């Protein structure tokens, strides 16, 4: 092979690709050259001088981290001269090192300790004064101990090269260089924990678990993160029924060892003192009282059976959170469909993801991505539409950054953000072309993309020949529309030229598009766009919807929604029904099921008599105007399985304590479609039980047993019911476009709703007082769960309205001032903060504190997909006075 070179390292031959560094070639031979500053994720810096080796024909020792293998190179890593060099570097480091290993949390897993053990004598000749850095408070989450620092700058380089955050710097010079944030201020950054993870010594450590462990005291469970749809591999390190720390190892998982603030610092909700530890049952006094499982379950089973007998299975509905495992979700829907006999069930994807699922299934026949994370990294163009990717899906954000920063991909962004630099990353800063899309206008921008494909003559000639009617009718519909007045036509057209001209490209879509009215139509239009430019079926190309919660993909695929059976397959699809009947030995009910909002309304009207709510909190998740509590109070029986006594759980007749993901086994399916293991790290807290187990127990008591010995047994059944689940693991073969479905779409399927999806939606007129408010995901929280995580509360303890600094200046607002917001539905008063990335005229509020704005919002369900749109609202803003402050 021409692009390989042969080298000899310590007498062992190896052939490596051209450009391979000596240190990497050695590693492949199992030879570990000691190093601090080198890390495969980072460009080499060769500053620690630890990895010096002998190379024949070069007089001086060379740093193996910066030397590229050349043909015939002979390297020696273990000669007296080399060992002496390693020793001397350690001697220099140890001269000033405080040797405070007994109180250092890195002790026992510290590179400096290990290399010292290997190379240095046990005595030191250093007898002068050690350099001492004064201790300074760095941040509530991250501890900095500069006296231990080896100045390898991995943290600074990681923060820049991988995260694109640049919150860390290397200040001063000479012997007094140190890692800093800005001018002695407390660290303000993304808190991804990457600096903690990548520090080879104890200079940067987590304060959440400071002094609480020695590494060898901890029990390790390799699991999957329960926050967003990125599906990061996590290592839960536990001790005495406590999660001590969460980390992720380089090379592991779809995240390759990278994490975000939620993953790294957001674990403490698991052992929060408010966790429910026993079942609660409402007694005659109207209060919830603790009870045992043995007391509660038989009563509950009987009550459900009575209601079913009295009012029919149709009177019972269920909701389940996509935070649950596939096993929970599967058993839930099977319980609802068979034990209860009702199709009234719904899950988190109803809040937006279902728009993508329906659109993708309609055009390409699969809800899955036709690309993988690797395709994102290898793409030469990425188009992001309404993703807020760093906040919502931080690790996919890293793939985007890697594609742009390391591989030079062109990034095109249609985001409700504007390029602006501060110390949290903002992908629009990396955009080759960017358009700031006003709240709710992503659909219009997508229509513009389709129109531009025609106007720029980028329609695939083959397609025109093959599906002439599709092309001509979409052309007629799309080109009849004007370009949206609020985006720049030239830029939009240039974007389409760049995108269509690329070798490999992926469109990523997120919640700003999917959770807004028209989200379904916009997604179908994007599929039209990919079809038109002839890319949909090309390898490396695809449309990739991102999911906000960890297992939304799983919730859809387990069939935990009214319209889908496991697969997902359509509830009415005869083939799917009979396949499932083979596994279940019974057909699922045929009646059309109600969706989330319909179930709330049916509860209010008395049509529903009972609801089983697993991990969902509709009282909080839906605005006050929906009056969810009022509706649920009308039920004869409300059962809630939960970690905490949520707003919804407080209304329940029976509250059942459920295990968090840290206490159970199972699987999650991420955005990309990787089915990944969740492994138990803790014993269940109190008397809590996995959700599936609760339902399984109930089913037995109700005389329709769904019995499973453990989560693996459920997975086995899932695999029988859903062909895709035979493949488990981290490098899935991406799904392929189903050509039959696509042809059906092209040959006529497209016509359905053509007029509605190419329908001009004029930009809402602003009268100068109207602000577009978006309630959405922030980086530091996810749902309400994260607001029980001490670490995340340290970063962001309360909701703040985020606005553009220029807008704030115009209104005379300072950080922390309060404003009164008024919408058609109501009003709210909240503190403000400024961020340059929020476009002028736009306001943003973190979803996790949405209760602050509950009265402002209203809901409009999507007529097709049932998504309750209610996260965008037009408001007026007025200042109510200074005060507040604190938090982020």
């Amino acid at each position, binding site marked *: 092979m021409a692009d390989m070179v042969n080298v000899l390292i310590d007498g062992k031959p190896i052939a490596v690709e051209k450009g391979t560094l000596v240190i990497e070639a050695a590693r492949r031979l199992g030879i570990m050259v000691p190093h601090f500053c080198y890390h495969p994720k980072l460009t080499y810096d060769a500053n620690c*001088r630890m990895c010096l080796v002998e190379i024949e024909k070069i007089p001086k020792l060379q740093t193996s981290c910066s030397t590229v293998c050349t043909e015939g190179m002979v390297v020696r890593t273990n000669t007296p001269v080399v060992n002496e060099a390693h020793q001397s570097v350690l001697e220099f480091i140890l001269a000033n090192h405080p040797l405070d290993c007994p109180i250092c949390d890195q002790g026992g897993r510290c590179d400096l300790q290990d290399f010292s053990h290997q190379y240095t004598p046990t005595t030191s000749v250093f007898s002068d004064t050690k350099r001492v850095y004064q201790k300074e408070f760095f941040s509530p989450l991250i501890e900095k101990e500069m006296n231990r620092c080896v100045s390898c700058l991995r943290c600074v380089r990681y923060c820049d090269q991988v995260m694109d955050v640049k919150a860390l710097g290397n200040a001063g010079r000479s012997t007094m260089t140190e890692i*800093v944030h800005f001018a002695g201020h407390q660290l303000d950054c993304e808190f991804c924990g990457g600096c903690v993870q990548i520090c080879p010594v104890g200079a940067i450590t987590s304060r959440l678990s400071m002094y609480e462990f020695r590494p060898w005291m901890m029990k390790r469970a390799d699991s999957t993160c329960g926050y967003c749809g990125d599906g990061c591999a996590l290592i839960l390190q536990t001790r005495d029924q406590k999660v001590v720390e969460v980390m992720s190892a380089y090379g592991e998982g779809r995240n390759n060892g990278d994490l975000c603030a939620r993953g790294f610092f957001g674990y403490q909700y698991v052992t929060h003192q408010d966790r429910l530890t026993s079942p609660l049952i409402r007694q005659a006094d109207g209060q919830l009282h603790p009870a045992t499982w043995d007391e509660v379950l038989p009563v509950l089973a009987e009550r459900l059976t009575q209601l079913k007998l009295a009012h029919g299975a149709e009177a019972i509905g269920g909701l389940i959170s996509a935070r649950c495992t596939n096993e929970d979700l599967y058993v839930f829907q099977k319980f609802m469909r068979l034990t209860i006999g009702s199709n009234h069930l719904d899950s988190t994807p109803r809040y937006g993801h279902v728009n993508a699922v329906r659109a993708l299934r309609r055009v390409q026949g699969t809800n899955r991505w036709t690309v993988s994370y690797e395709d994102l990294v290898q793409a030469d163009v990425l188009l992001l539409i309404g993703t807020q990717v760093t906040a919502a899906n931080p690790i996919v954000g890293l793939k985007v950054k890697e594609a742009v920063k390391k591989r030079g991909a062109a990034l095109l962004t249609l985001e409700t953000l504007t390029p602006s630099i501060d110390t949290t990353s903002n992908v629009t800063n990396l955009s080759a072309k960017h358009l700031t899309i006003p709240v709710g206008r992503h659909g219009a921008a997508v229509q513009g993309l389709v129109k531009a494909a025609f106007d720029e003559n980028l329609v695939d000639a083959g397609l025109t020949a093959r599906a002439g009617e599709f092309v001509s009718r979409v052309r007629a519909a799309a080109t009849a529309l004007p370009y949206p007045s609020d985006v720049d036509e030239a830029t939009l057209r240039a974007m389409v030229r760049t995108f269509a001209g690329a070798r490999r490209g992926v469109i990523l879509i997120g919640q700003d598009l999917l959770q807004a009215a028209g989200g379904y139509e916009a997604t179908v239009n994007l599929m039209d766009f990919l079809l038109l430019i002839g890319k949909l079926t090309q390898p490396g190309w695809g449309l990739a919807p991102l999911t906000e919660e960890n297992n939304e993909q799983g919730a859809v695929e387990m069939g935990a929604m009214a319209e889908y059976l496991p697969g997902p397959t359509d509830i009415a699809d005869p083939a799917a029904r009979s396949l499932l009947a083979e596994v279940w030995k019974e057909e699922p009910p045929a009646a059309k099921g109600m969706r989330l909002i319909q179930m709330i309304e049916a509860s209010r009207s008395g049509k529903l008599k009972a609801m089983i709510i697993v991990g969902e909190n509709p009282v909080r998740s839906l605005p006050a105007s929906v009056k969810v509590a009022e509706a649920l109070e009308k039920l004869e029986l409300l059962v809630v399985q939960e970690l905490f006594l949520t707003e919804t759980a407080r209304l329940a007749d029976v509250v059942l304590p459920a295990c968090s993901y840290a206490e159970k086994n199972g699987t999650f399916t991420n955005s990309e479609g990787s089915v990944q293991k969740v492994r138990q790290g803790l014993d269940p807290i109190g008397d809590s039980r996995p959700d599936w187990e609760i339902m399984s127990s109930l089913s037995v008591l109700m005389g329709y047993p769904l019995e499973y010995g453990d989560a693996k047994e459920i997975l086995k059944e899932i695999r029988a019911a859903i062909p895709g689940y035979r493949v488990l693991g981290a490098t899935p073969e991406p799904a392929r476009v189903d050509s039959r479905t696509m042809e059906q779409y092209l040959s006529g399927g497209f016509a359905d709703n053509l007029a509605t999806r190419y329908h001009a939606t004029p930009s809402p007129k602003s009268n100068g007082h109207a602000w577009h408010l978006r309630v959405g995901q922030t980086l530091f929280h996810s749902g309400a769960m994260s607001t029980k995580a001490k670490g995340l509360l340290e970063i962001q303890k309360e909701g703040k309205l985020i606005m553009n600094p220029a807008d704030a200046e115009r209104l005379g607002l300072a950080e922390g001032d309060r404003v009164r917001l008024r919408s058609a539905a109501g009003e709210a008063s909240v503190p403000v903060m400024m961020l340059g990335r929020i476009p002028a005229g736009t306001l943003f509020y973190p979803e996790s504190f949405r209760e602050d704005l509950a009265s402002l919002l209203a809901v409009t369900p999507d007529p097709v997909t049932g998504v309750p749109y209610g996260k965008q609202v037009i408001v007026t803003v007025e200042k109510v006075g200074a005060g507040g402050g604190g938090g982020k």
Partner: protein
Amino acid sequence: MSSVFSKAAQEKIPGILERYAEKRAALLPLLWLAQEEHGYVSEAAMKEIAGLLSLTPPQVYENVTFYTMFNRQPIGKFHIQVCRSLMCALVGTEQLLGWIHAKLGIKPGQTTPDGLFTLNTVECLASCGTGPMMQVNDDYFEQLTQEKVNRILDDLKRDGKSQLASGPFMFPTPAKMGSDSIFSPKTPIRESKMESDPILIKNMMQPGYTGSLADYERAGGYQALRKVLGKTAPADIIEMVKKSGLRGRGGAGFPTGVKWSFIPKDRPGPRYLICNADESEPGTFKDRQLMERDPHQMIEGVILAAYAISTHVAYIYIRGEFVLGAKILENAVAEAYRAGYLGPNILGSGFALDIFMHRGAGAYICGEETALLESMEGKRGLPRTKPPFPATHGLFQQPTVVNNVETLANVPHIVNRGPEWFASIGRPPKSAGTRIFCLSGHVKRPGNYEVPMGITFREMIYEIAGGMRGDKPLKAFIPGGASAAFLTPAHLDVRMDFESLAQAGSMLGSGGVTVMEEGTCMVWAAENLLQFFNHESCGKCTPCREGSLWLLQILRRVEHGRGRQEDLDLLLRLCGNIAGRTVCAFGDAEIAPITSTLQHFRDEYEAHIREQRCPFRPQPAPELITVGH
């Protein structure tokens, strides 16, 4: 949004940004702009500059803390910076500080109660032939005496400025232009039998020569440019310079024409020439003179070099402290534009070149070419790992040549008079041409002397520099700047050229010759230089970052009577662990004073340890810790 910059300053910003292909490179100019307005760089300024350059505030902050010249707090109206490096220390830093203390009552690190004066000691200000000296704000004050210091401080207090500030640099002053002047043509030098006309300082020796464009043209300036621009192929100029044998005058002595020839011929995209005017090797002050006294000579060299490597952008990275030099060069560049020597179509040849000034901000390491590139790009001035070399991956990762001021100043003469002429001067082929040697320390006539390479140190010290001050015996000398190993009287007949000095175990380096008389403590001298090196180590790589402080601490103990016998072997072992193991040559430089003094004067170290005191000083020398970062 409100700005920390005045309206006038804001208007300059777009012009500054325009000079660079990458915005970030405007960092130092913008920090200077902020400091010029407020006397320091505030947090608000750092944030605003971060915004202007698409950087985060920590990225700006880490740079501000790297350079000594940026103040992060308001300081006294007059910032007195006294040079404490060896060359000035040999001739009176301690006395100077005493005089200032007597007058103002402040010590280094302190500010007078009225907030007028802040005193600091700083490292070498390239004024070694004219010590003791101090810089007050932008102005240099040299050859100080107590009386002069008193007058200066009174002037400043009263008028805000003093007439005693140094003008364009010229030492020694050519008092007599007669036949016995050392500058006279064809100086017969007895021992080496070498003679040569001065080349680089010839113009400035003429009475009344101001360095203006008119003066330079009158003296034959810009003829080389007229001769070749558009007429001779760039590749032929490179050949010419190769043939001349010109080697870099910055310190490393790399053949200039060869360096130019490494620029890829057919790679598309920009390429750059950078004139390294960051002269800061202690003991060296020749570039300052070349820039202040005859700026057009260097500019013509820059244009010729740019033409040879076919670049259209050249930067002059000038040391931050050289405020006067920067002003003179800026004026000269403006004159050259007006005269059509710079701009879009130089002398109608179709060749276009822009020259931009780029001021450093106080960091010795930025004289190292890759550190200079990092600094120019708006990053901390940390040397890069080589390869790749600047010729292929230089400024903004584009092909780049970095040449020293004196190197470039030679180019017009080579073009004018031919490579053969140049190659006949000095000791060709390896040491062709003249060198400007900077004499400092205990000689009668310190200053810059341009002589053919290859004369002996004896001739230089005893004939040209007038011999030892007070006719005391010579004890030691540093032949090529602080990074060069000390030599002894036994080396007086070593010739001042590349090979001879390498053979003698030292180096020609930057041409800074520091002479020390009998009675000078070698441990003290080494300690002084180690403090310089520790202060100026960039901190990037372990051996230098950690080793420089360790070495300094040991030397300080030995000098102050707390040495131990085992210290000497420890010093040597630590030096051995630094040598050849660092990213740049700084590591080798910082150990030279120690290994060479230990080699030649080990008995002196032993005496310090034996007697538990410095044998040369009744009182231990004060520890003058350099502040500034």
